[in-house]
């Protein structure tokens, strides 16, 4: 985990040192297009931007080792504080989207696989392909038009009081892609397991359908499904960027986008590190789950 974090930190540092544009120039772009060279010089000095890259990277790593992510150029607040403030709304959004994706995607894939070639199977797969190919931004707008503007059931944007009403539209929009992928993966995994010898043997021994599905089919298909869930769950934090911007959701994604355009490097580094950390944690959890579901994996 530590080498990954170090590599990511170095990569972000190098990228933001190489690409044109700086925090001070973004302030001019964001303001009135006028510049005060003295203030710019002072600003570079205050934030240490006048020092060579290797020196800045060195002090960043030293601070990181002490779990100090530095101070935001924009707000002059500790980055950790800003990230924590934004992490929960994003996690809430990602968890809600994943729950929707699992609750709908997995059963759909299962049912489709149990009756391959049926109308249900064909419809599910067409919907899954569509779900994967539709842009999130467009889907979000469509959801706003239908459920907020036309039906008036839900608010079209914002965090409200943090309750479920404001969560539904962004979470449903965010869940569409992982739901579609989960339905497809589940169907493929179940079909694969169904053609295995041990299933045929179990059937020939007269095992009842319920026990066959729960004991043999589901358990063996679950390894692939959990891998997909893990990967999707990990990447949802990144995918949430578009949704958060569209729905004015106060998450990590919108903070990251703003910080990139403002070249608020400490916040960019912190936010990316948090996303990487999230991904690594999910992967570790998935690895543990593998062993629980299929003990052969841990023995191997």
């Amino acid at each position, binding site marked *: 985990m530590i080498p990954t974090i170090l590599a990511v930190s170095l990569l972000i540092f190098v990228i933001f040192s190489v690409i044109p544009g700086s925090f001070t120039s973004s302030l001019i772009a*964001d303001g009135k297009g006028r510049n005060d060279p003295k203030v710019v010089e002072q600003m570079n000095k*205050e934030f240490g931007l006048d020092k060579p890259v290797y020196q800045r990277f060195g002090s960043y790593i030293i601070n990181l080792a002490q779990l100090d992510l530095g101070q935001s150029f924009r*707000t002059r607040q500790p980055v950790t504080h800003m990230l924590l403030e934004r992490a929960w709304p994003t996690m809430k959004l990602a968890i809600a989207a994943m729950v929707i994706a699992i609750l709908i995607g997995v059963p759909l894939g299962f049912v489709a696989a149990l009756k391959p070639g049926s109308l249900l199977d064909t419809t599910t797969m067409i919907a899954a392909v569509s779900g994967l190919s539709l842009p999130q931004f467009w889907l979000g707008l469509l959801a706003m038009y239908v459920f907020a503007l036309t039906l008036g059931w839900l608010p079209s944007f914002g965090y409200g009081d943090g309750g479920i009403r404001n969560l539904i539209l962004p979470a449903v929009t965010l869940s569409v892609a992982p739901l579609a992928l989960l339905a497809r993966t589940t169907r493929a995994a179940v079909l694969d397991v169904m053609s295995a010898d041990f299933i045929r043997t179990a059937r020939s021994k007269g095992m009842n359908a319920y026990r066959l599905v729960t004991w043999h089919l589901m358990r063996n298909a679950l390894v692939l499904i959990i891998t997909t869930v893990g990967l999707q769950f990990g990447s949802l934090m990144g995918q949430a960027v578009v949704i958060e911007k569209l729905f*004015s959701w106060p998450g990590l994604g*919108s903070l990251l986008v703003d910080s990139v355009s403002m070249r608020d490097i400490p916040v960019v580094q912190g936010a990316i590190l948090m996303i990487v950390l999230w991904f690594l944690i999910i992967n570790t959890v998935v690895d543990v789950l593998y062993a629980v579901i299929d003990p052969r994996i841990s023995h191997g």
Partner: protein
Amino acid sequence: MYKRFALQSTLAAMLLAGVAMSASAEEPRKGGTINFVAPYGSSFGTLDNQASPATQDEFVTKAIHRRLYAWDGNANKPVLDLATEVSASPDRLTYTYKLRQDAYFHNDKKMTADDIIDSYKRIMTPGKAYTGARYISAIKGASDYSDGKAKDIAGLKKIDDFTLEITFNEPVNPAFQLMQPSTVIYPSGEADKDSFKSHPIGLGPYKFAEYVPGSRLTVEKWDKFYGADKPHADKINIMIMGEASARDVAFRNKEVDVSVLGPAQYVAYKNDPELSKNILEVAEVYTRLVGFNTDFKPFQDKRVRQAINYAIDSDLIIKRLGKDKAYRAVSWLPLSSPAFDKAAKPYPYDPEKAKALLKEAGYPDGFEFELTATQNESWGLTIVEAIIPMLDKVGIKVKAKPVEAAVLSEVVPAGDFQSFMWSLESGPDPMTAMQCFYSKTSQSACNYYKFNNKDFDKLYEAALSAPTEEQKNDLLRQANNLLQDEAPVWFFNYNKAVMAYQPWLHGLQPNSAELAIQSYEQLWVDEGVPSGR
């Protein structure tokens, strides 16, 4: 006879009643919540407004804070705010302010001269880089204080708790400097506390209530605000909505009370019989242009620069691409500027004249130049794509160089360009705006074109020391006309800011400095506001 009298009396009574009814309809209603929109990004940069030049952060400044001067969005001029009167010394270097005695911070502290002195000192704190320093450095001794050479700012003198004397380095109109959002006044000793960064305290009509970063900031009515009978609304939710399409849905769904419109939405709203009833249009103080770097040889010749102005059909671009959401630019200063010459006419579209000028300048076959621009829909690559074929007709080849906004504002002050397209603030103070063409202004500050013209300099310097506003504006008018002739840029257009508002919202001001930034204390909602607010 009696019948006629009775009829006339009835008619008169009805008329009076009608007038009274209409007057009461205009009477601001107290209470209610306004859902305003901050459309320039997906968050606020900071809640420390002394540290930010961003327009997006002004939405917060206007609600929570106050400066020595304020911008009057109705009259479109700066006015005294935290002082009741001001007197200037004959040399216009020293100004004495009688401060308000009825201004209270949101922590119940009464404002005194110390708060203003301490705020300005904070902006100039040695080793710190607050963006307000650009304006406060005009005060005598501010730079010495910032450099650590003095313990206090020499130009700030407290006469008594409610009398403040400010001395400037040179004769200036302090109103434009001290009305800037980054010169807001904080209560002494509060600003550097950690809590202040997330819970700001100001003198404004609304006090901070809640901030959900990236989503909304809520402010509540400050009962001790000094404005007579204001503010009207109890609460303002400032919704952060950077996405135009999302804003559109929220506005149509009546979730927000205003929406700033882009060119595409402007057409849709104008064509809608209901939405078109509540649209506010203003010529803002932003001039969209293509700036020419005179380090690039062809641009050193005035005839080449003029030729480009003649070769581009600006009206056609404004109509087709800008959807008429802009006013044709005549010169640098915008329509609302007191130094704008109403008799001046923009460059006509005349490709033949352009060709002749190019030939005279020694470029009969044209030349090629690089144009740096961002993706902005109103003054970016879309416009560049439209001018490429127009300039091609007169033999000039344009190579577009797309960059990000933060990159544009890095390469332009550094002079690393041949030409650039930008929307630059050209007001409200004509003096500050014209400074960008003064030869002593560096390229890194705002003379991006390296414009150097002795006649212009003379007019500018004369305006600096002009004894009256009228004389100053007259000199600047001449300077602006000279700029048009010199054509250091392609004068494209002045932004037409358009804001749609809900029928229940009243008190909006036609603020030419920035339409979206409204004085919230003047806004009110009538009974038509959706229930539940």
